[in-house]
């Protein structure tokens, strides 16, 4: 990651000037960063891209359904290349080329999926397509776990999402078994590589599921459940930061995902569900569930400002950006939804503006308190 390296480089110079690191230490650090990133970063990424291209080639080969080659030969070709990919992976791991080994595992998992499709095609097996995706995902997750392969984890998480999404679109109801698969992948990742990007993928996937509760739950208004889960997650992540991070360092992104999910629920109630003001006779200042829009809008702004405050206190950049983006979306949403009643809209924005400025003054006074020394200790 170039940007991080540049920042670190500046800081290293700064630390050297202060005498915190020796010249030898500086050289060692630079060497380590340079080696690690160049070897792992570039070759790993290229290896994964190459594996992905090969995998698509294999799938297209299956798709063409080439009848010139007997069925058994086609199956043998796929099975043989699957064995070869995993064999190559093992050889690369043993020879201590983990980045290429991961790429080979990814390729093997992709060929596994292609073979499932080929067999379905050979026997005109329509079956239940998401079921095939689930089996593919389980096989890939197993490979990711045993080989400690992050690219394979990424594929398995994506397949879990595809499976649940497909099932959901077929039945138009939430697919709860998804949570079990999600938990297994989470546990596997935690027991092995603890890959941060993997946790982000899992969090994104789970967030999408929780947001869908709002739209697909028949009992009551599911958005309130989504809102509750989001707020509870954010509160837990912010107030139990230390105990959570002692087990697994996820509290900071957890707070950001929580606020994002909570806001997504409020946004859905206000702007996406049911009637818009264009529906005849409906007041733009009321949400589809009958609640006054200004109450929901005020709740959203309070939620997002609370997010900003928490971000400032805990120095959580992700949470800060989520809250800023949410605030912009909220304000634009209200603006467009109430476009027909500009005077009321203007009143809402004026009131909100005055309140937020008042709040910022209070926050300024409160947050100035910590002495520079304690602030330094906290870091």
């Amino acid at each position: 990651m170039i940007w991080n390296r540049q920042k670190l480089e500046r800081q290293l110079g700064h630390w050297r000037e202060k005498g915190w690191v020796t010249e030898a230490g500086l050289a060692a650090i630079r060497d380590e960063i340079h080696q690690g990133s160049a070897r792992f970063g570039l070759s790993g990424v290229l290896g994964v891209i190459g594996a992905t291209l090969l995998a698509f080639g294999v799938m297209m080969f299956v798709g063409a359904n080439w009848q010139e080659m007997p069925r058994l030969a086609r199956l043998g070709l796929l099975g043989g290349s699957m064995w070869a990919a995993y064999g190559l992976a093992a050889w690369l791991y043993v020879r201590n080329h983990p980045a290429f080994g991961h790429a080979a595992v990814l390729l093997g998992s992709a060929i596994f999926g292609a073979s499932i499709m080929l067999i379905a095609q050979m026997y005109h097996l329509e079956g239940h397509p998401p079921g095939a995706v689930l089996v593919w995902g389980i096989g890939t997750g197993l490979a990711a776990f045993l080989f400690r392969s992050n690219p394979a984890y990424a594929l398995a998480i994506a397949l879990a999402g595809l499976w649940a999404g497909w099932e959901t679109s077929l039945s138009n109801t939430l697919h709860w078994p998804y949570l079990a698969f999600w938990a297994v992948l989470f546990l596997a990742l935690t027991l092995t590589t603890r890959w941060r990007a993997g946790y982000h993928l899992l969090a994104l996937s789970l967030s999408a599921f929780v947001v869908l509760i709002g739209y697909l739950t028949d009992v009551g208004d599911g958005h309130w459940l989504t809102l509750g889960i989001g707020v509870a997650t954010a509160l837990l992540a912010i107030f139990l930061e230390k105990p959570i991070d002692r087990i697994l360092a996820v509290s900071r992104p957890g707070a950001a995902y929580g606020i994002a999910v909570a806001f997504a629920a409020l946004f859905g109630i206000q702007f996406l569900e049911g009637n818009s003001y264009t529906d005849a006779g409906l007041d733009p200042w009321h949400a589809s569930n009958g609640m006054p829009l200004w109450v929901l809008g005020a709740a959203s702004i309070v939620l997002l400002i609370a997010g900003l405050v928490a971000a400032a206190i805990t120095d959580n950049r992700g949470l800060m950006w989520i809250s800023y983006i949410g605030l912009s979306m909220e304000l634009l949403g209200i603006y467009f939804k109430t476009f027909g009643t500009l005077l009321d809209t203007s009143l809402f924005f004026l009131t909100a503006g005055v309140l937020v400025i008042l709040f910022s003054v209070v926050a300024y006074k409160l947050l100035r308190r910590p002495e520079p020394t304690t602030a330094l200790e906290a870091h």
Partner: protein
Amino acid sequence: MRVNTWIAVAIVLLFQTGVLGWMVYDRMQLLESGKEVVLKTEPVDPMSLFRGEYVILNYDVSRVPRAQGEQVANGDIRYVTLEEKVKGEWSVAAVGAAYPVSVASGQVVLRGKVINTWSGDVGESMQLHFGIESYFVEQGQGKVLEDKVRTGDLRVIVAVDDSGKAAIKGLVLDGNVRYDEPLF
């Protein structure tokens, strides 16, 4: 937790090859030992993303009547008993929510999933899927098959096992029987 690399390879290959092997074995069993029926059909030509071209087959026996006021939801399972009333013409003899207690020797039972229901002037009816609605063909052949069928007559040879599970065994196009190449 670290697993020896070669043990990892062995477990992954055992699982993944096992899944593929089981899929093939299950189908071969059904095709070899299932009872054969021939069903009249009409194709429509779509394209499956990864599985190449296929023809969607609609069967005459897919749309069956349901009892007046019978509650049926999409995804429910129904068993259709087929009978060969005229030689080579299989038609619906009975429809039920459970597998029939006794099946006559000339009858075959298909297990179907409800995908649509109708009611109104035409009477109460429902559309079933038996899992034999897709026929995969080589790239470019879907349209050809469809054109041939528009002028001719297409029947599908289906193998059915004792639980009602069905698999496509081959096609009969204008009376010419064309079995699918077996795996072995």
